[in-house]
């Protein structure tokens, strides 16, 4: 931007301090990015290394840790459980959240503020606060440790999340389009099928991808409710890291890389469809 060098007393003289500021800021950004990259790289390099101690790089490279990690952590079972959990969470939270968001965006009614508060609370209360009693309850009704229990627990933050993301999105769709379809003789199903679904598709896509990335990484709730047969990838990663020393560090790192790749894959797809700037627009009360 071309700045006009009109400065009032007390302001920075624009050009010089602007340049200092932007150099400082971008070095900070680069420092952050480089360090995070190095953190990720040290896991990735170690997972391919044979023996690494006191040198810059491992002595040799191998892929054997991936095969041993696959057997050791029963990754095929874990991955199937993860896919089941994540897919159900995405489908159910969109199925419950989008209709609710539609009602909130289109109607004013008594009790709307209470309902909004009810939907914001699960986002503002720490997961452990409701997770521990919820897990106790689930174990009481024999859902604890099952796939269904894990899915229910994971839905608690995602349903309100979908509502909060979708409400502003639906608000910006012109209501007159629906009215016009009615005038042209469309029934409720017709309006839904030919007007709403195509218009809502990008928003639903964005919301479900976000829920997907979120629930792959959702650790606390799954950890509290999962049993031996319902562990997701992130929980078995924690279990492995917690008992570090029993297994080779490299196979743990291999597991971490599998986790990161499966999560990163979906984020990249998400970023192709949605402009990140518009992801979380207007999370107001």
């Amino acid at each position, binding site marked *: 931007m071309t*700045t*006009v060098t*009109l*400065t*009032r007393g007390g*302001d*920075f003289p*624009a050009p010089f301090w602007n340049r200092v500021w932007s150099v400082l800021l971008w070095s*900070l950004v680069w420092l952050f*990015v480089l360090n*995070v990259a*190095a*953190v*990720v790289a*040290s*896991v990735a390099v170690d997972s391919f290394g044979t023996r690494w101690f006191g040198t*810059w790089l491992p002595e040799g490279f191998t892929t054997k840790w991936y095969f041993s990690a696959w057997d050791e952590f029963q990754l095929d079972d874990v991955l199937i459980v993860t896919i089941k959990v994540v897919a159900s969470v995405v489908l159910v939270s969109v199925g419950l959240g989008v209709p*609710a968001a*539609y*009602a909130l965006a*289109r*109607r004013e009614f*008594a009790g709307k503020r209470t*309902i909004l508060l*009810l939907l914001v609370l*699960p*986002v*503002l*209360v*720490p*997961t*452990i*606060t*409701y997770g*521990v*009693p*919820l*897990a106790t309850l689930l174990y009481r009704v024999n859902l604890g440790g099952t796939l269904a229990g894990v899915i229910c*627990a994971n*839905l*608690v933050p995602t349903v309100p999340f979908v509502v909060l993301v979708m409400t502003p999105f639906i608000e910006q769709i012109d209501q007159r389009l*629906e*009215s016009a379809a*009615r005038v042209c003789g469309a029934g409720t199903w017709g309006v839904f099928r030919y007007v709403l679904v195509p218009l809502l598709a990008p928003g639903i896509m964005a919301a479900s991808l976000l829920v997907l990335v979120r629930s792959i990484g959702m*650790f*606390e709730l799954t950890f*509290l409710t999962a049993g031996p047969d319902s562990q997701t990838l*992130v929980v078995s*990663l*924690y279990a492995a890291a*917690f008992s570090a020393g029993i297994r080779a560090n490299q196979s743990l790192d291999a597991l971490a890389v599998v986790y*990161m790749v499966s*999560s990163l894959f979906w*984020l990249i797809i998400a970023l192709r469809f949605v402009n*990140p*700037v518009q*992801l979380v*627009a*207007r*999370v107001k009360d």
Partner: protein
Amino acid sequence: MSSLAAPGGGIAGSKPGWRASLGWDGTTLLILPAVCFVLAFFVFPCLYGLVLSFMPLKGGVFDNYIRFFSESRFYSTIWKTLLIALPATLANVFLALPIAFALRKTSRYQRIVTAILVVPITLGTVLVAQGLLGYLGPNGWFMRLLMTLHVIDAPFRLTHNYTGVLLSLIITGFPFSFLLTLSYVTGIDPMLAKAAATLGASPWTQFKQIYLPLLAPGLAMGFCLAFVQSFAVFPSAVLLGEPAGTTRVMALAVYQLAYEDYNAPMAAAGAMVMGAVQLIVVSCVLGLRGLFYRGPVGGTKG
């Protein structure tokens, strides 16, 4: 259902009843499944936990809370958690603000930098913990680099202590804070800043006089959402910190009560204290934002 009716009105032509007078019609009923779900799986467990916390395994009604606030291994977790979560959240919000401000104009550059900065969201606390243990450890690249540059003579400890946990919370929390702040910054009408620029305001003045007051509510909300995230995290406190010492966070104490001591009522009491501390912090922050300007921010974005 006709959507021609004005908001607040019922279905056109339907007979007026108590539901219509409240503004409830067929469309508003769509909200019920989600509300029922939240009631069943969020509100009910919270109430259950609250009731359970007053039914200790032995002793009187308030014994769990008395125990929590009299034994130092429990009450000390409150300030230990705050001491980790507050600096991490503040660092994230104040790191995200200038970067988001610098990226406020839509460009190709903005999309690329945003994408790069958002990627750590996929890493997750466990992977970051594992990575930091390797990278900052005594044989890691970071120490080797500092020793090669002769900044230090011997490696010093950055992991298995408070610093490690703080760093991991900053890395995992930053993308979220950044995204939120960026979406608030880009939601402000750029014409306001342009108007100020024609009057001779430097970028710093524009930021101070226009963006900051308008951003205050968004920043407060962003702070709260980021705080929740770092408040409840315990994998990094266990893997990267001293789970028996300086980084024994509330979440960990509650978890141990429930799954190692099998004392569900005491764990519920801890969970309730945790929720209360969180809500106190959130209401303080949201109360502070009331001191700032409240009003329209410019409706350039849907």
